[in-house]
């Protein structure tokens, strides 16, 4: 709708939404809430990106993880017996007795192809059995392997235990991250609720007038619910944009580690998550609105 010319006065001009409605006032309180919620969502996004990187890195080398069991003074019979027992264990995908030649090649490469030294060492080396874990082998596989190996007088490579624990560690971290996200979401709901409560107080004349005109409670609440959702979504979008600088800063390092990270996967969760906490905050703020329809005398 085109504006009619002024009557020579400097009239206030405000941008209008479709339908001719003015944008709601966006003052200092809203800006502060937007910044605080943006920072909170940015932090949450950063944590989840870190989780993503960690999971990707762990998965990268865990696909190739093998356990090695060493049997001192090996003989073929004992090695076969041990390998058979290991093969029968649940969570074990494959068992292989590492041939001496392969061990020699590995040592040659490691020691710099010093053949004489390798010969002496070859005599003293324990027999090696390589165990390939299944895809979902469970967190107790290493302990079970260690027990089995011990029963034959063998031992499992201890260094590989830490690698196994990494996966369960990531699972624990993810649980903690969910808990932290919920706590931060609760804090954001309270912040937005407080902001909108102040907004409602500032616009109490509008609320009162709508009630005098016979508006339903949802009609009165709807603008504030909408504002809360927009505030949250806006904060989520901004928070997502702020993820890019730190992501670009560590991109080289992540590439070296072989960890794949994509922040695009966080865009929708931050937008909708922000909108949800904003809406919940607004719902909390408007729930405490005292009805002024009729006061008993």
């Amino acid at each position: 709708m085109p504006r009619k010319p002024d009557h020579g006065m400097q009239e206030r001009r405000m941008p209008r939404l479709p339908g001719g409605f003015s944008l709601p006032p966006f003052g200092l309180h809203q800006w502060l809430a937007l910044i605080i919620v943006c920072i909170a969502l940015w932090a949450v996004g950063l944590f989840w990106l870190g989780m993503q990187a960690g999971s990707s890195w762990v998965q990268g080398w865990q696909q190739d993880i093998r356990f090695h069991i060493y049997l001192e003074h090996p003989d073929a019979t004992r090695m076969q017996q041990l390998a058979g027992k290991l093969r029968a264990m649940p969570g074990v995908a494959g068992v292989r007795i590492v041939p001496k030649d392969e061990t020699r090649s590995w040592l040659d490469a490691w020691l710099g192809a010093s053949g004489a030294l390798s010969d002496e060492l070859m005599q003293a080396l324990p027999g090696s059995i390589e165990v390939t874990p299944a895809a979902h082998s469970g967190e107790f596989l290493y302990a079970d392997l260690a027990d089995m190996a011990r029963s034959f007088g063998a031992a499992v490579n201890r260094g590989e235990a830490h690698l196994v624990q990494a996966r369960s560690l990531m699972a624990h971290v993810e649980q903690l991250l969910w808990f932290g996200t919920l706590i931060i979401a609760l804090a954001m709901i309270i912040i937005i609720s407080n902001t909108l409560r102040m907004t409602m107080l500032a616009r109490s004349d509008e609320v009162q007038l709508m009630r005098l005109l016979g508006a339903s409670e949802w009609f009165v609440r709807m603008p504030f619910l909408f504002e809360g959702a927009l505030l949250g979504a806006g904060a989520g979008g901004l928070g997502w944009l702020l993820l890019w600088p730190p992501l670009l800063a560590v991109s080289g390092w992540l590439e070296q580690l072989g960890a794949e990270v994509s922040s695009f996967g966080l865009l929708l969760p931050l937008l909708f998550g922000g909108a949800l906490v904003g809406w919940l905050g607004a719902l909390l703020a408007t729930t405490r609105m005292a009805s002024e329809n009729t006061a008993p005398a």
Partner: protein
Amino acid sequence: MADKGHASGYRSSMIQMNRLMLRYPTGKIALSGMTMNIEKGRFAYLTGESGAGKSSLLRCLYGGVQPSSGKLTVQGLDMRKAGQRQVRKLRRDIGIVFQDHRLLFSRTVFENVALPLRVQGWKPDRLVARAEKVLEFVGLKDRLWSFPEALSGGEQQRVAIARAMSTKPPLILADEPTGNLDIGTARHVMDYLMELNRQGSTVIMATHDLHLLDTHPGDIFRLHAGALAEELHLVTGGGQQTRGEESDAPEA
């Protein structure tokens, strides 16, 4: 001479009250045993000194406060038994004009006038046309997109009248609508209210400006200390205007 003024025919009654009492939590008795009947299509003045109970009576009529005792029926709704939903529904059929107009200064004239329409669920594509029509009635069509702060006091009150009439309510309550206006502007405002009455709306107006009664006659209900002191009905017929007098309450 047709006597249309006498309170009769409860079937055509817009407002009925019988021994209506209103006592605020502070103990103040705003209305003490008021009995009154206002028929549909009438223009009724509530007059009286400050504290006589005019505003309190208007608050009772739109459900802003619940009477302490007695009976009050507005458009067939028993106000003492009405629930929240019924009160909201009643308010959609009432246009209210306040002394301080209660315009939203952060919203344009269009948004102020369209607010009752939005409350009633009008579709957005019809709002501008309707707002233009009612603003044209009060002579402010060209101020559709202005903000109230850019209008004079009289223009703001006219916008308030436009808002009150935008949904064509059968009942219009006006609480001292000319209280802050000069005589000339006040008469213009009264002209609009009279025209709304001629178009079929019942208008109840609280005022202590008795000069308006001479140029814009109507039924008069004079209040004093929360009670009805005097009741005068405008009687028309045969081209002449006479007043029938009734005094069914104690002298002030």
